């Protein structure tokens, strides 16, 4: 594409003409220097950079992720997320437990390829820039983060549980099934969080995003993913997390929630988070509460595979069906 055609496409797809010099970038190694209105030329394709993605965790405006660019594909005007190469390793804390975590572009590229035909994972492909960097071109999902969807539901818990939850659970089970397929393919997601599921507008399908985290081998390779799935279940069943200090603050004067909760009722990883949600919401069926208790301090047996978790979740699903 020559410069005049590029300018034409930029105006067509961004609705504004490019002012000033056209800056075409073929080597993305110095991703901090790539800015809005630059054009990335990658394997013969042209992408107009619109800015950086932000972390956006927990509904807040987070820090910009300079290695993740929002872009428009100048071939057809479609919106893309372009993930550039940023190798980092850091110590993540799961509750109080430190765990060494690595960001791997190659791992994410491999999963994109393995899940190409699986609609429950974000779609995209990997190409190399002129310096051989492994760049992932991701289709932007139009929709809502699962975290925001649940938090924005206006009903109280009981109404939510009876009216919305059965459908939400069905979708969450489909997400767990997708993770099971990933595990069977010899991969882990690595960063399972309730804001890493997008609910696609239109199809209403729940879709996993962002799987570039990886870890050193452990005896149970799926432990970190199962921990994430446990959090998603607690969040889904509880319509948010329930922590003792918040409950005390909202309860009737003089009532200490701690007095009706034993240590075994609390989350294994977060000492103030309630896992035995049936004690707060007695209409939660035993089968479902039984699943949640696997993630509590009182648990004697843990799920080691997503298959075990799925087996128990399917029982819950049938228990929630109207008689």
């Amino acid at each position: 594409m020559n410069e005049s055609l590029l300018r034409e496409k930029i105006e067509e797809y961004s609705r504004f003409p490019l002012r000033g010099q056209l800056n075409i970038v073929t080597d993305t190694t110095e991703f901090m220097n790539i800015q809005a209105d630059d054009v990335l030329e990658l394997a013969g394709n042209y992408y107009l950079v619109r800015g950086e993605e932000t972390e956006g965790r927990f509904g807040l405006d987070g820090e910009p992720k300079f290695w993740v660019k929002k872009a428009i594909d100048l071939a057809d005007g479609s919106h893309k997320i372009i993930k550039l190469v940023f190798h980092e390793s850091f110590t993540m804390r799961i509750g109080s437990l430190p765990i060494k975590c690595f960001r791997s572009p190659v791992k994410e590229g491999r999963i994109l390829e393995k899940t190409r035909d699986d609609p429950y994972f974000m779609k995209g492909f990997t190409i190399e820039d002129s310096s051989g960097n492994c760049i992932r071109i991701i289709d932007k999902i139009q929709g809502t983060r699962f975290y925001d969807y649940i938090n924005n539901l206006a009903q109280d818990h009981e109404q939510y549980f009876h009216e919305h939850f059965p459908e939400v659970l069905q979708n969450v089970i489909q997400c767990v099934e997708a993770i099971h397929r990933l595990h069977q393919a010899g991969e882990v997601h690595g960063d399972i969080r309730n804001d890493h599921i997008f609910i696609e507008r239109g199809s209403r399908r729940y879709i996993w995003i962002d799987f570039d985290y990886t870890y050193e081998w452990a005896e149970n390779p799926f432990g970190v993913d199962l921990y994430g799935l446990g959090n998603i279940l607690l969040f889904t069943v509880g319509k948010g997390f329930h922590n003792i200090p918040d409950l005390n603050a909202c309860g009737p004067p003089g009532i200490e929630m701690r007095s009706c909760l034993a240590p075994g009722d609390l989350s294994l990883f977060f000492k103030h988070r309630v896992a035995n949600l049936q004690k707060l919401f007695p209409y939660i069926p035993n089968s479902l509460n039984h699943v949640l208790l696997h993630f509590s301090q009182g648990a004697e047996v843990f799920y080691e595979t997503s298959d075990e978790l799925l087996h128990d979740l399917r029982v819950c699903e049938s228990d929630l069906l109207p008689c």
Partner: protein
Amino acid sequence: MMNKILIAIDLSENSLKAVDYVARMMQCHAAVDVTLLNVIKEPSTDIMPDERERMDYVEQKRSETLGLMEQAARKLTEHEIPEKNVHLKIQICSKPVSVAELILKECEAGSYGTIVVGRRGMSKKEEFLFGSVSNKIVREARDCTVWVVE
């Protein structure tokens, strides 16, 4: 009949405790044959993409491990277990495998009567996230005795 014992050791202090225990238990038993097994996990290519770096890592681990295994073997021979009956084995794995499964396979292939493992005393959280080799061996071992030394 020869008592074949497989001691799975890593670079931890508890592994040496396990060896100590076997040495004391089997002192003066001429009919004992002990294999010290260590598994070195090559870092995944996602974490360490450079092949040379991975090879250097494994070589360094092998050298550290060998030193420790020789120290462990001396503990056994000091307790009069014949040197010819003490064997060292290092397995290097380039794929993410379960160490417990490797130990159990080795046990079956070598017709060992006893597996000995140390236990680090993991917290529940650690066991959830990382899994426990000793717990898995206790749960899945068949046709052999398992000693877990704490």
